């Protein structure tokens, strides 16, 4: 694919006329997907998908087009030239775009992370035995993901990685559930079996009789997987500069009124793990590490070059949507092994589900608890609780109500596959809250 990308880029760039500027992006995957239910195979298959996207700029006007690649060079070259010609016809008829981002050469890069993955015909046999005797629902995804970028200023980037993930739920006969994810790039059968055995042991804890709790405010611990979901909300009406400028961010209060969160709360965009590419669709390289909220104060936002031009601020080469690509929430000093003791009496939440802003300017989020959630009394886990709805503000639970942050960050690999398999994930610790609002 890299070779095809290079050839197509060369053809397109060689055919540019004077005054035309071009940005080219490729993205795609070769994937296996096996879906399990009741620890048996529900659906299984393979997907080869790749597309090329081109942005034409001429006389301060711009338009873009993308198309599926076939892998056949002559077919793809013909389609690429057809698309370029279509854009040429269109671009002159459009209004000028005062904030168009011209291609630049700020350096090229090439990264390839070769893994050792399960053979696609052996996946079912390798995965199935460890999940027998328990009810598992989930998805196996495995294969190569790639992305690349080139432009008419001469810059070029390529990033490819081999990854796998089994994202699953284990379910007891009376419908209590435990969540697990086993992900990586080098398959190790015994590590997989250990991961599954640990999850099955956790499921056994769910077999205790349940306890019903009433809506109200509770002392609460949210484990890293749940915190990862909350961090995800900062990508949607959160840390993006454009969303703040357009009045659509939950952080407008921090910018305009200098409101602060807890000194225990530090969020950054951090590419040091190297599991996601640092270049965006313009081919610009983001800084290796950028503090966003440092000890409760808003230090930086994610700023794309387009936003920088529009609002007269400095770009930090964020992606077009200014969402987090490699978020890291800093660990604190609460010993992870002492969490249950420190809760004393309250609730332990492993996972959250279906989060949404219920009042975005107010920073209020609603959502559900899900999977292994427990009532804790006198420092001991007493009983699983039924799923509850919460509705509370980030300015409370990341503010005055944030008592402590655990001392260990865990990586929660991205497993979403809407526009192809996602790369990277959220790195975060757990949080202990003095109070958390359950409403239904």
């Amino acid at each position, binding site marked *: 694919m890299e070779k095809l990308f290079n050839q197509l880029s060369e053809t397109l760039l060689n055919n540019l006329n004077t005054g035309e500027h071009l940005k080219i992006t490729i993205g795609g995957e070769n994937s296996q997907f096996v*879906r399990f239910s009741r620890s048996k195979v529900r659906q299984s298959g393979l997907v080869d998908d790749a597309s090329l996207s081109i942005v034409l700029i001429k006389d301060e006007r711009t338009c873009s087009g993308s198309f599926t690649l076939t892998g056949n060079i002559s077919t793809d070259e013909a389609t690429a030239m057809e698309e370029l010609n279509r854009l040429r016809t269109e671009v002159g008829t459009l209004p000028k775009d005062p904030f168009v981002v011209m291609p630049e050469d700020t350096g090229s890069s090439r990264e390839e992370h070769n893994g050792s993955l399960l053979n696609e015909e052996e996946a079912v046999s390798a995965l199935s035995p460890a999940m027998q005797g328990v009810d598992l629902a989930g998805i196996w995804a495995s294969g190569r993901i790639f992305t690349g970028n080139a432009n008419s200023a001469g810059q070029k980037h390529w990033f490819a990685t081999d990854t796998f993930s089994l994202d699953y739920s284990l379910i007891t006969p009376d419908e209590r559930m435990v969540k697990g994810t086993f992900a990586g790039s080098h398959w190790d059968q015994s590590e997989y079996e250990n991961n599954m055995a640990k999850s099955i042991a956790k499921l056994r804890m769910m077999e205790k009789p349940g306890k019903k709790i009433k809506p109200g405010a509770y002392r609460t611990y949210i484990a890293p997987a749940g915190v990862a979901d909350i961090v995800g909300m900062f990508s949607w009406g959160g840390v993006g500069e454009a969303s703040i400028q357009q009045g659509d961010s939950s952080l407008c209060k921090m910018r305009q009124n200098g409101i602060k969160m807890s000194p225990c709360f530090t969020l950054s965009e951090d590419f040091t793990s190297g599991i996601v590419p640092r270049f965006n669709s313009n081919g610009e390289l983001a800084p290796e590490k950028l503090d966003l909220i440092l000890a409760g104060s808003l230090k930086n936002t994610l700023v794309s070059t387009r936003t920088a031009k529009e609002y007269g601020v400095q770009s930090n080469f964020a992606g077009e949507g200014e969402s987090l690509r490699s978020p890291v929430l800093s660990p604190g000093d609460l010993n992870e092994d002492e969490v249950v003791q420190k809760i004393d009496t309250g609730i332990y939440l492993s996972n959250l589900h279906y989060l949404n802003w219920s009042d975005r300017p107010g920073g209020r989020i609603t959502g559900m608890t899900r999977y292994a959630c427990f009532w804790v009394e006198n420092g001991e886990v007493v009983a699983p609780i039924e799923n509850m709805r919460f509705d509370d503000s980030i300015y409370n639970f990341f503010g005055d109500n944030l008592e402590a942050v655990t001392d260990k960050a865990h990586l929660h690999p991205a497993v979403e596959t809407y526009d192809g398999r996602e790369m990277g994930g959220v790195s975060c610790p757990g949080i202990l809250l003095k109070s958390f609002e359950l409403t239904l």
Partner: protein
Amino acid sequence: MSRLNLNDALSAIDVQADWVGLREVKESTTYRIIRDGNPQANSRGVDHGVMVEVLADGQFGYYGCNNLDHDSIQNAAEKALRQAKASAKNPLFEFTTEARPVTKGSFQSPFQQSVNELSAGRLNEIMLKAYNQLKVNDQIVSAHAMAMIIETESNFVSSNGSDIQQNFLMIQSDYSAMAHKDDIYQRRTDNHCLQIGMEEFDEDLVLARAQRVGEQALELLDAEDCPTETTNLVLASDQMMLQIHESVGHALEVDRILGDERNYAGWSFVREADFGKLQYGSKIMNITFDPTVANQFACYGYDDGGLKAERDFIIKDGLLVKGLGGKESQLRSGVPGVANFRASSWNRAPIDRMANLNLEPGESTFDEIIAAVDHGVYMETNRSWSIDDYRNKFQFGCEYGKLIENGKLTKTIKNPNYRAISNPFWNSLKMLGNQDTFEVYGTPYCGKGEPNQAIRVGHASPVCLFENVEVFGGV
């Protein structure tokens, strides 16, 4: 549609399988967006590929393939066959060709003006005028006008003789204004998702919608917050769309009920034994699966398993009678279903989805409904949605509300929210609007499935009155 003759490609496949199917999809999605007076996007994406499906040893294996030449399709069929055989070592269910009925036919979206009748430049001009209408004054700090045009060709052929061609033209139009004063931010929007032609962008129509959005955004700046109380709730059609979607549609997808989604979207409070027995809502609640409503977003002739789509009652007089389950789910569960086995594109295997799922209108005029309420709240247009994995406990927020006092709409209110539990909520449905209040909406982004699939759905509903609902305002 393409360089590929699908029937020739099918006959050229040589594998030892019980059944082979090819589903080719070519979809072009165009965005034209003006934000804050400048073009934000003029993009077109074309997605094109073929799903090769093979049945062997009771299992379907698939290969979604972006190369459409005969050699590639042959290779895909061989690999799909090996996927099926590997699955047969630990299968959930043994399928036969009964899961892929033999059907021939075609479908075409209705439209008056074709895509070519409205140029890119002209559509930018109309969106710019819409923006100018949205920006009533400087208190509108950001606004956008968006046009999305989707053209889809989907062809399906199979070794047992199915041959289906479907052509869709789908439009989303979206107008949005953010108003700001002191610490108050209020967004107002107007969104349509329809199978329709370029007549959707008739200038007068566009400008009227944009003007209302801009004015109501400003109106919200001076509005009081929604009160916190348990009261009568009247929901407009554009909020009922979300209410039906989350608390009826997803709960009735048979693959969810069977447990396929327990690791992602979730399970359901509805079980197989509830069909024919569960009083889902009050007697006036009638829900139809209806792929035939003119211009609705998810009209089609056939689902992606080849089953012919027809109008059918899912809930009749409040009683649950049918599930949203395609042929595979019908075979697995024995629950009667509909033609809703759908894939988001060529690169995904079909699963049970909503399509057009509608609440049938009743008898009351809008004024009669309001007049019947001595105290309550009226809400329009969803802005926040969240529901649990069993589809029980939901909390929804709207953009715009009005108090109802002594049978009349009075003050405008901001940040209206409500929460309830699905089954008791639907049983508290007290009045239904008539055909005049029945409006058609939809969304392109219903997410479900592993691997994930975003699919287009349509929901139409009259205005509804619910009793004893918990409502509340902002922070």
